[in-house]
């Protein structure tokens, strides 16, 4: 069984079905991309995994446990953390306090300090701005902080929702190279992106989501080469 496994997951907002029998796996060491257009259900998929909403049908397993109905705080404790869409930092708290909040479920002080150093190594900009109020950071810095905050949970799976959204091209390069680096340190990443070409370049495997259903899956390379994907998402 894979580390994280969604089986036939259905999800609804009221009477509107947002996910239809979604099957998805993330295994140790992988970067898995979930691509698709606006409203396809990418963020909903992450919300069901992190327990912010529960599937109406199907199951979610993580690390051998059924987490279909588990609450969000327990899921963070089990080892899934998320950098949400739109970053969702705590805008009136400092960079350091935002990072501390990321480690909320942990009590090992030395481990937290070590991880904060690790985040600062990954994002030297954050170290420079450690006492700055998060709401006053630039867009790129905010994205780095959101990712760093998610890393502070010492996750077994890291979920990144639209990390490149609204960033300048040069920053997008930086963000994706950091995704690679995080993965190289052994953290599996579930990457949700509209920027399909970038996402497929870093991903080992990828899923294409369309109006709530997975319509295509394969390795990053396969999907990059696929004609449908090129037409629909890569603008080639």
């Amino acid at each position, binding site marked *: 069984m894979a580390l994280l496994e969604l089986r036939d997951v259905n999800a609804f907002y009221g009477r509107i079905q947002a996910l239809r029998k979604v099957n998805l796996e993330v295994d140790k060491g992988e970067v898995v991309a979930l691509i698709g257009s606006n409203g396809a259900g990418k963020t909903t998929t992450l919300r069901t995994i*992190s327990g*912010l909403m529960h599937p109406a049908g199907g199951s979610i397993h993580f690390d051998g446990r059924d987490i279909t109905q588990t609450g*969000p*705080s*327990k*899921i*963070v*404790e089990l080892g899934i*953390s*998320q950098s*949400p869409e739109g970053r*969702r*930092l*705590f*805008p*009136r*708290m400092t960079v350091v*306090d935002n990072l*501390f*909040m*990321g480690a*909320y*479920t942990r009590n090992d002080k030395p481990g937290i300090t070590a991880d904060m150093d690790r985040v600062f190594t990954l994002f030297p900009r954050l170290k420079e701005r450690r006492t700055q109020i998060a*709401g006053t950071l630039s867009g790129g810095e905010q994205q780095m902080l959101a990712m760093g*905050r998610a890393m502070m*949970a010492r996750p077994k799976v890291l979920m990144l929702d639209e990390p490149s959204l609204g960033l300048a091209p040069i920053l997008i390069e930086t963000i994706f190279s950091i995704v690679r680096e995080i993965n190289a340190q052994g953290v599996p990443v579930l990457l949700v992106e509209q920027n399909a070409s970038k996402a497929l370049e870093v991903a080992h495997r990828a899923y294409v989501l369309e109006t709530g259903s997975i319509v295509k899956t394969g390795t990053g390379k396969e999907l990059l080469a696929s004609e449908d994907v090129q037409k629909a998402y890569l603008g080639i």
Partner: protein
Amino acid sequence: MVDFGFYIICGAAVVLLATQAVSNPTAFVQITVFGLADGAMYALVALGYTMVYGIIELINFAHGDVFTLGGYISAAILGFFAINEGSFTAVNLIAIVLVFPVVMLIMGGINITIERVAYRPLRNAPRLAPLITAIGMSFVLEGIMFLWHGPATVHFPDILPHGPQFQTTIGGVFVTFKDGFVMVTAVVLVTLLAIFINRTKLGKAMRATAQDRDAAQLMGININRTIAATFFIGALLAGAGGMIWGLYFNNLFYNLGFRTGLVAFTSAVFGGIGNIPGAAIGGVLIGLIAAYSDSYIGSKWTEVVIFGILIGVLVLRPTGLLGMRVPEK
């Protein structure tokens, strides 16, 4: 542009007060002392309003009654001690030191229960629903106090040091031990709150939840526990406020919390609802404004002045004095 009107009114008020201060400085300082003592108590109650609003956007109308009930309960517990109202004894001191934390914890427990019963089940209901249960809780608490001691004023034992040897005149200004006691206690409590909110893990989790509840959940913060903690801490301050009020004025009545609560709520709005330092500052300012209004305009106009401020702030500067522009989500 709207801020302009706000500044004009503030400016006019300051000029008028300055004229009074220059023409009779002694009286002005005297009134300021009274205002600071009242304001310290309003601040303690206002903090509970603003913290609860900050975290769940509910105006907890029962909060003023939690404050009064704190006074009632502390009076009852003080009855178990051999206190002496004539002069200040060691028993008085011990009673005060012991009853403060006890009544604070009791009120904290009561407020957590109120949240659990009246607000949590409506967490995802339309905003109006918990507002109505809050008003309902206010009536329930007032009803309990009415059944307990009836409609008349309840005597609160006068056990703080008082009498001629505990008052003094500094440069024509009359100051009592009680004035100092109220201000010092309030400053100590607000300082402890500030340390808690800014330094502890739970305090930070409360701020995080207030700033973005979904994101707080994604950090693994237990929202229910954090919200309960907010009610608990708000009630610690309100309970202490009720006891301080009793010790200062030596009387309470069952619906004292209605007016005091509204004044404290006005303080919270004045300082910027949801903003913790704002509530403390707003409380002190409203206390001062009430005292100036009592003396310079006439006490029958004071409520008009205070609630005029509430309306004025809501119209001209809804974010209050320290309110920050919150980015639209």
